[in-house]
């Protein structure tokens, strides 16, 4: 201890010795040379700082030892400037993500980009909100190399969005950790992963309007300090803060866009509903006459030609004034599109921000209201953001962030193969009759209150067979949901010296979720009511000491910290069984039979200590390392501790070269490990609660064999990269290569069911994920009245299974729709193959022919369990262009993906049911395939017979597509796409127009979201929007809701 005191005394002496203040002054401008008012200037490593005045000027007393200024301003990239011997500085800040110098890293520590031995990419808030994207995850699509965003369809108001960072770094996939101002947020998803309403993922509570910037930490190198949860990357959000500024500090922004259904499959409009091309002749019991009618019990369209024949439509069989009506059979090509409404998205936000020298505040309120294209679907979200930072004394700082989110949804549409709650889109695309006039279905209620539908059982039994009217579900089966949430932190920071500070933070994320689902009485399905209530909370108690000091040419930046994390979760799930005893009494007490009830409680604590040390030499060589130890309550008591290190190095070699062409050049490399644990209650044996029989309760031995010998899992990764900028930073190139091995994961590995369990929890596997990332930034034209900046990023990833466990060559990740009964589609992690391998039924080939094997009747010989490709894309990326032309700003953002397979149920049944255009195609003889084969119709099938003879067989289309049910290879598509996702044209009114009045700025923008799917490898489906709710493994589309296209206007007013 004496030694330590001595060291401290020496350090203090050194500080005192060199302590001599000097004054530095300067000016901060934007790219166009306009003064930035209220930009923050901070002497790095100290608490000395100031803000620019009305003319953009500042003056600061610089404590010695501090040699770097950190300049930041809302909407602009933060810059660090080395002062050196200068006394006046002219600083130009740049908007957007280009040319970052300071970035937010783990634990919310802002660090000089130069010093990082790993890749971190940052996106400014402006780039997220430009076109009113409501889910921040969706807003990230294509903006960061190696970050793949998959969303639900645009028509799922407030629906889910998922990011994959660098492919998958764990066998079962996973989500990155979302962190807002240092507070980790839950990203649960209470939707189903296959169907029903999509309630969105919880990270979508983050209000894009409150975001200053987002950095994505991709490799474990960047994330070692967040521990196990950072295994899949970290999305770090920094919210806007207040600071001294001119004007009232009020910003008002209002955006309104209207949206319409964009992509639907192409339908045939030549054949009506039915199973064959003959009208059905029915003798009307009322008038005794014989009528031609259609087979309304068929939810397929193999029926008669739509040729104007006079017939009795479905509604003429209902006992009302239209009974007996006959009409000519005509096509309704737009019947599906006409079902949907025009939706609106309306965002209004107001923010008050400002401050004085030692106080900054911001209070923001945003209201989002979305009315979806599916009738009666609506989503509301109110966000309140309060942030405060106060320098109580020169040494003592208090920071508080509080975010409150109140959201509710009503009538969110069901996605997937979910006829029970009524996914109308699924019916239109999979089980429908093409000739139906949608307007006739709007009136789904008869005068007597009974419900009407096209899919009647027969002409004398007008009850629904498989489908209610599409308007029934969206009007009567309304699910509702609401969530109240608050999250934030209180942080106290005390600067013990100019170089050593200690900070304590208490962070909490708390949410309260309610979901109510309903099936109305009187429809096809039994009436039903379900109530799900959940509350989750995470507390983090964090203590962090930071030491920053320069010793001559060596800089030291060290952190030592501890964290206690406490997670708790409670839920109740209850649903009626056997119907409701009073029609439409949506109350659990109305359950006819014993309702299903279950409660779930979970608690988990993780204790951690960690340290980080970064050393810099002459601003060009940096070496850093971290060490972290976690103790998890979910692991066996005697094996619950795990320690993991990381190290990184960065060399800014341009400092050594001194060439003008290369304005910046950096080499970086890092290696890291990250440990992980398991969900609570997985190590000890307990029984599962079964369905009781009368008064006899039942319990089950669980299918999962627990394991008391589990060990923590360790992922090891390394990455290396180079960052090059040329010609005064006008051209930048950033390259990264990474390799990630996730070993000994805690997996519920499948075991043969005959062992008595279906899965066993073990440590197993080695999954390797590697790839490269390229980012190019350029400013080809740079002028005060015209400038053009462009950003391109793309990334490749390969995730391969190296080993599983002894005797197991494949880990089944999921079963596809219908399971074995629909032919056995599976998603797999198989040794030696890329992760996410789809297996299913497909074509058979024999030597000597490229044609598939067929039987004499033209049916394909099916090979089961065939490898049909991986769901992971070969590469992903984005392309953004921004033009400044006088006061106009034009921005266009494209994102793209190549490869990555998915299975489409929509496509399969679209043809199986005779709805799709292909099911009424013209064959090579020039005849409709629906014509009898003997008359030249039929689908041409080219194949090879068992004896090797190549042959052609014409097959009647209903049989042809019937045979292709569960014939997965036919319905596997590449999810490749190029999408123009965002376009905006904005105009900043010149400041001179407002004089010296209250208005500081006014910007008007025309915006478009999803204006154009430029390329897609699959017709009728948007492959970028196939995320099924809470699904972690996106490999099949069971009944995609339609994508939407929206256009709007946005006005931002600054006072």
């Amino acid at each position: 201890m004496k030694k330590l005191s001595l060291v401290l005394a020496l350090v203090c002496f050194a500080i005192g010795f060199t302590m001599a203040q000097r004054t530095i002054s300067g000016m901060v401008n934007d790219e166009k040379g306009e003064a930035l008012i209220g930009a923050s200037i901070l002497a790095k490593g100290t608490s000395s700082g100031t803000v620019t005045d009305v003319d953009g000027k500042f003056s600061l007393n610089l404590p010695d030892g501090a040699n770097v200024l950190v300049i930041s301003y809302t909407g602009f990239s933060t810059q660090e400037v080395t002062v050196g011997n200068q006394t006046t500085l002219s600083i130009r800040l740049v908007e957007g993500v280009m040319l970052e110098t300071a970035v937010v890293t783990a634990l919310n520590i802002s660090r000089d980009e130069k010093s990082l031995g790993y890749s971190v990419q940052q996106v400014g808030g402006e780039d997220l909100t430009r076109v009113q994207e409501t889910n921040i995850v969706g807003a990230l699509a294509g903006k960061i190399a190696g970050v793949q965003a998959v969303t639900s369809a645009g028509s799922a108001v407030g629906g889910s969005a998922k990011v994959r960072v660098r492919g998958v770094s764990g066998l079962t996939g996973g989500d990155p950790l979302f962190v807002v101002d240092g507070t980790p947020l839950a990203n649960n998803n209470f939707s189903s992963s296959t169907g029903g309403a999509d309630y969105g993922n919880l990270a979508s509570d983050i209000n894009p309007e409150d975001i200053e910037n987002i950095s994505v930490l991709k490799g474990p190198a960047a994330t070692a300090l967040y521990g196990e949860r950072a295994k899949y990357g970290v999305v770090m959000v920094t919210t806007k803060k207040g600071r001294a500024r001119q004007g009232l500090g009020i910003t008002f922004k209002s955006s309104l866009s209207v949206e319409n259904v964009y992509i639907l499959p192409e339908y045939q409009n030549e054949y009506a509903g039915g199973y064959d091309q003959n009208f059905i002749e029915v003798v009307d019991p009322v008038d005794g006459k014989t009528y031609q009618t259609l087979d309304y019990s068929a939810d397929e369209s193999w029926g008669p030609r739509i040729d104007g024949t006079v017939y009795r439509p479905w509604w003429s069989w209902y006992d009302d004034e239209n009974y007996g009506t006959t009409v000519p059979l005509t096509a309704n090509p737009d019947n599906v599109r006409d079902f949907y409404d025009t939706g609106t998205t309306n965002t209004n936000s107001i923010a008050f921000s400002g401050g004085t020298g030692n106080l900054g505040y911001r209070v923001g309120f945003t209201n989002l209201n979305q009315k979806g294209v599916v009738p009666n679907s609506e989503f509301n979200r109110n966000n309140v953001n309060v942030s405060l930072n106060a320098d109580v004394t020169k040494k003592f700082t208090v920071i508080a962030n509080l975010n409150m989110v109140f959201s509710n949804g009503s009538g969110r549409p069901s996605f997937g193969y979910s006829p029970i709650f009524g996914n109308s889109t699924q019916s239109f695309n999979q089980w429908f009759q093409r000739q139906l006039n949608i307007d006739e279905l709007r009136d789904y209620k008869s005068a007597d209150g009974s419900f009407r539908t096209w899919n009647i059982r027969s002409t004398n039994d007008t009850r629904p067979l498989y489908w209610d009217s599409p308007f029934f579900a969206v009007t009567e089966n309304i699910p509702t949901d609401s969530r109240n949430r608050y999250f934030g932190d209180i942080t106290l920071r005390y600067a013990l010296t100019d170089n050593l500070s200690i900070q304590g933070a208490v962070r909490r994320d708390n949410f309260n979720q309610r979901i109510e689902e309903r099936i109305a009485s009187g429809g096809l399905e039994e009436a039903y009511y379900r109530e799900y209530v959940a509350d989750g909370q995470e507390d983090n108690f964090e203590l962090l000491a930071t030491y920053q000091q320069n010793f001559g040419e060596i800089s030291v930046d060290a952190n030592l910290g501890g964290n206690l994390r406490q997670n708790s979760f409670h839920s109740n799930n209850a649903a009626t069984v056997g119907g409701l005893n009073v029609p439409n009494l949506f109350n659990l007490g109305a359950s006819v039979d014993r309702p299903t009830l279950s409660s779930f409680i979970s608690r988990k604590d993780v204790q951690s200590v960690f340290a980080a040390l970064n050393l810099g030499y002459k601003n060009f060589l940096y070496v850093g390392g971290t060490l972290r130890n976690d103790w998890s309550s979910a692991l066996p008591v005697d094996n619950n501790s795990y320690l993991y290190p990381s190290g990184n190095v960065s060399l800014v070699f341009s400092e050594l070269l001194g060439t003008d062409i290369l304005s910046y050049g950096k080499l970086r490399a890092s290696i890291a490990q990250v440990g992980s644990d398991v969900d609570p209650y997985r190590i000890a044996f307990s029984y599962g609660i079964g369905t009781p029989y009368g008064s006899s309760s039942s319990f089950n031995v669980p299918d999962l064999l627990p394991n008391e010998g589990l060990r923590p899992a360790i992922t090891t990764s390394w990455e290396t990269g180079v960052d090059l900028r040329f010609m005064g930073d006008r051209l930048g190139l950033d390259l990264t290569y990474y390799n990630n091995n996730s070993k000994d994961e805690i997996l519920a590995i499948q075991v043969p069911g005959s062992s008595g369990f279906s899965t066993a929890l073990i440590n197993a596997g080695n999954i390797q994920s590697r790839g490269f990332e390229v980012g190019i930034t350029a400013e080809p034209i740079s002028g005060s009245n015209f400038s053009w900046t462009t950003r391109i990023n793309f990334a490749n990833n390969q995730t391969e299974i190296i080993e599983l466990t002894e005797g197991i060559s494949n880990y089944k990740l999921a079963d596809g729709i219908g399971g074995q009964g629909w032919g056995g589609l599976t998603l797999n992690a198989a040794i030696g193959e890329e992760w996410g391998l789809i297996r299913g039924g497909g074509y058979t080939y024999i030597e000597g022919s490229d044609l598939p094997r067929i039987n004499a009747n033209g049916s394909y010989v099916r090979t089961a369990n065939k490898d049909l490709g991986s769901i992971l894309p070969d590469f992903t990326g984005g392309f953004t262009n921004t033009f400044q032309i006088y006061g106009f700003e034009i921005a266009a953002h494209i994102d793209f993906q190549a490869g990555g397979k998915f299975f489409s149920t929509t496509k399969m049944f679209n043809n199986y049911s005779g709805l799709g255009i292909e099911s009424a195609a013209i064959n090579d003889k020039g005849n409709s395939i629906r014509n009898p084969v003997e008359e030249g119709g039929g689908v041409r099938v080219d194949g090879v017979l068992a004896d090797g003879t190549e042959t052609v067989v014409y097959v009647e289309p209903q049989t042809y597509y019937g045979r292709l049910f569960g014939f997965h290879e036919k319905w596997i598509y590449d999810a490749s796409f190029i999408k123009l996702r965002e376009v905006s044209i904005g105009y900043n009114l010149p400041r001179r127009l407002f004089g010296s009045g209250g208005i500081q700025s006014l910007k008007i923008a025309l915006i478009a979201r999803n204006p154009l799917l430029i390329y897609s490898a699959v017709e009728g489906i948007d492959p970028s929007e196939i995320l099924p709710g809470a699904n972690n493994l996106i490999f099949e589309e069971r009944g995609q809701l339609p994508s939407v296209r929206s256009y709007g206007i946005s006005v931002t007013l600054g006072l």
Partner: protein
Amino acid sequence: MKIKHLIYALLLVSFTSCGEFDDLNVDPNNPVSVQTGTLITSAQRSMSDVVGSSLGALYAQHISDIIYTEGGRYQSIVADFSGWYSGPLQNLQTVIDLNTDPATSTSAAASGSNANQIAVARILKAYFFHFLTDRWGALPYSEALQARGGIYSPKYDSQEAIYSALFQELKEAVAQIDGGPGVKGDIIFDGDMDSWKRFANTIRMNMAIRIADVSNGKAQSEFNDAIAAGVIESDVFYPYLGEANNENPWFASFRTRTDFAVTEHLVDYLKATNDPRLAKFADPTLNSVAAGNPIYTGMPYGVTNPTSLPPDVSYPNSTYVKCQSCPLSIYTVAQVNFAKAEAAARGWGGGSAEDHFRAAIQASWDQWDVTYTAGEFDTYYNQANVKWDAGNWKASLAQQKWVGLFIQGYEMWAEWRRLNGPMFVVPAEPLNPSGGIPLRNIYPTTEASLNGVNYSAAVTQFLGGNDSDGVRLWWDVN
């Protein structure tokens, strides 16, 4: 100095809650021990999946798909047996273990005497294994259900070995039933141990008949021994309740849909023989009822594209088959009498084959609540296409078993394979690899990857290298 404080503070933050920390991982949601009777209840609920399976009824061609005909065209021929092991069989094995282990047997005795619980669990295990081996053939048996003992990849045993072991199990189980309290949670026999003895003997009797063609000696001795030990004297049903959690599966499938109808060639045979059971098996078609002229129309089996409208074909009967609490047969007196008829025909003794055959049909009529006079029964029985034909008794038996075992799908499918009758329809567009009527289920695809060595060995050893539905089971020799 300050650094020291800092370290203290860090330690304080990190370890304040250590005592609680170690106890956090105790699951508050699920029990670590339960009454063993509740495991028996759970296993018995799975019997509904045997006797109420629509797939079984399709395979027996009792029932046809009306619209989506892929099921009846054998699309699901690759079927997973895993759930039977990790579900009911594992529960039953646990009942045996808990009643055997001295550390738990005392507390387990709250659900009945240890011996009685073990006996019931063994009998039920035998019931399920018999059902399973008759679907797939060779299966993991001797090494199955031992994951907790370290066997994750059980080897397959031949069907012959499984039969042999099950005969033994059933005999031993019956022998160990003691005078102690009967089992609790028993939803089939309510803990009546005498019924369990008879049930066990009935399974044994049925198994013996099944292997008659392949192992006549063993079959005869097991059969006679089982009959002598006492078989069921009243029908054993799965008792469904009038509530949605425990309702009849046919009721459930018809709650919102109308996917199934009674098969055309069954309806035609019942009509041709004026069988009063037609009105018990099927409903008249909705359209015929609406038109005031109720008739029964069957649905052709295994059509490729729908040929009939749902209201034009006969659904399973609303009073006897698909009401919410309609019981479904597990073993019936008719089956016992059919078995006795066959035993007699095979010369194993036990009276007149024809008398037993008549008794079997009569028992079936009684089972289906037919009211009739002796004369009416005689008229029915004496028709050429009903009456026992001693020269071709297998055909007589097959035909009447098909009717008498109505809706006992899997059992009838096994009997069809063994008796090669009655004539079944081969779908025009079959979806099973063999293209014919399946002779077994194909092993689940997961076995090749999860239990590859044992799977390959089984396919080579027991299936001639071809895991197809066209390969005959051990007892299927004709």
